[in-house]
């Protein structure tokens, strides 16, 4: 039954999707206050290396490592976010891109700790460590009709899913709160927002730091799901990938980032049969998107249309609806 449906390869892809969704949200949240950061790959690297090094060298529990990874990335976020207030638009994009490159070069060259471009291996795997604890309590995956391998990957997916649901819930709440409205106001017009009494410095640094924390968090999760990281994982290409999640899906709404991350993770897997050409197709998609639908696939009007459709359907099934208006 369950054992026949579950395929570790598919589970692995699902866990990548879930990590990428966190990354997508991380750039969405900085974009929601009108700042474009291309440094999220760097923050992700900081989170990943912090957590990996702490768990390898000091035998810290994985959960503590992941949290510390996010915290350290957040501290860097504040350190970069405050001086970056002076910049906006493409200037901010380039400065953060530069930050990401500097971080990568440091990872490559700090041999004694990061093992340079070879990368860190033997990072404790989230699923396997949890599995050990489960084993201690006398649990056996056979009881669910699962093999050990399937169970491990299933655990990872479940944990990531839980984390994702919590994060999405949190940020949807935040968007409707004072903070979210302040972000939106700053994005629309900084000067007008300031004259309405919004503390621009505070909210801009807040959104930048939130993005950094999320990216670091996703990076730490990535390290413990992959069990191997190298500086190349956090290079320019990753920064572009993260940007594309939000831009392709739609940068106005959190659903855009989620959709973009999901679609852009599945696409290369689905296009595997023409794998030689898949990045070229990727490039063409970007160009076409910007020409025909620059706001991204999911925007406010699409969401409204969708909601109206849904409402009409519900009305129809309840026996009210079109007749009522005749």
């Amino acid at each position, binding site marked *: 039954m369950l054992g026949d449906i579950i395929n570790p390869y598919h589970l692995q892809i699902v866990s990548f999707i879930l990590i990428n969704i966190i990354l997508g949200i991380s750039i969405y949240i900085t974009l929601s206050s009108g700042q474009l950061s291309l440094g999220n790959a760097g923050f992700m690297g900081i989170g990943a290396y912090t957590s990996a090094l702490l768990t390898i060298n000091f035998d810290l529990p994985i959960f503590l490592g992941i949290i510390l990874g996010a915290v350290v990335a957040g501290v860097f976020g504040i350190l970069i976010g405050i001086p970056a207030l002076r910049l906006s*638009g493409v200037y901010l994009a*380039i*400065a953060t891109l530069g930050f990401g490159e500097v971080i990568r*070069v*440091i990872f490559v*060259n700090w041999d004694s700790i990061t093992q340079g471009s070879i990368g860190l291996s033997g990072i404790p795997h989230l699923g396997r460590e949890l599995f050990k604890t489960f084993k201690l309590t006398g649990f056996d995956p056979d009881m669910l009709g699962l093999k050990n391998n399937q169970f491990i990957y299933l655990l990872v997916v479940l944990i990531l899913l839980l984390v994702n649901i919590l994060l999405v819930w949190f940020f949807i709440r935040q968007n409707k709160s004072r903070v979210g409205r302040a972000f939106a106001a700053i994005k629309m017009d900084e000067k007008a927002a300031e004259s309405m009494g919004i503390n621009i410095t505070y909210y801009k640094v807040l959104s930048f730091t939130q993005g950094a924390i999320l990216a670091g968090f996703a990076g730490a999760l990535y390290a413990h799901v992959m069990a191997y990281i190298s500086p190349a994982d956090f290079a320019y290409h990753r920064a572009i990938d993260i940007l594309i999640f939000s831009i392709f899906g739609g940068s106005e709404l959190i659903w855009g980032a989620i959709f973009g991350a999901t679609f852009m993770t599945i696409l290369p897997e689905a296009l595997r049969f023409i794998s030689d050409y898949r990045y070229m197709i990727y*490039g063409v998609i970007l160009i076409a*998107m910007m*020409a025909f639908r*620059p706001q991204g696939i999911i925007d406010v009007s699409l969401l409204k249309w969708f909601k109206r459709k849904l409402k009409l359907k519900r009305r129809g099934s309840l026996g009210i609806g079109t007749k009522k208006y005749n």
Partner: protein
Amino acid sequence: MLLEQIINGITLGSIYAIVALGFTLVFGVLGIINMAHGEIFMIGAFIGVLITSVLGLPLWIAFIAAIGVTVILGYMLERIALRPLRGKQGVSHLAPLISTIGVSILLENLSHHIFGAGNHPFRHSFAQIQFQIGSITVYLVQILIFVISITLMVVLSYWLSKTKAGKALRATAENLETASLLGVNTKRTITTTVILASALGGIAGILVGMAFNSVNPQMGLSMGLKGLAIIILGGMGNVKGAMAGGLLLGLAETMIVAYGDSGYRDAVAFITIIFILLLRPQGIFGKNTAEAGR
């Protein structure tokens, strides 16, 4: 030793300067960061390899071919990735950045597919000619690169400041709408700018192939990022600034490799731009305006 390093630095810096000129022209006129510029540069280098090493034709044909191909690429970039976005309602100012990123991914993987991932040597007897002046060795290629880049710069500044087309370009850079009201064919001017920038990238590509004797599909990315760093260093849209910034970065990188830790060579550019952006966002040669960095 020091003198040799300075010559190496100037050679590298001249190439950087040509790449940065392409960036700065497009930014000056369109206000767009052309992320595909590095890849166009890389294609230029590959055309050079193809003509001289594979077909065995002389160098000047390689130059003409590289310029021809990059001009076509520049035109296509303008038509496919930039023009559809211009003047459209509700397009964020980041859209052109992203569509040029799309072009760069496409070109990088295309050349990866055609030429393979490895390094291609630029076999040409010309690259081996060298002089012995006192205790230092100077390659003819280094002199050639320096002369070509200086010539390009002089011609470009003359063209920009004296000719009608150059004036039209500067007017468009100043204000697109006003320029078009005053009778400047802004559409054509923009196309010319992108094509010119791409041709500069193609020339720089061949020069890099000659100077460093290796060409690979990944070189566009690192060169593109450095070009970005240089235009920030010299001031966005500033032609002289791009030149000086290029030379400065070339010298700094060479000195780091010679007297410091070569591993940090690629970080020099970015540490510099982070500091420049924070201390003097308008760049070393930029004018001080309230809008700098915004």
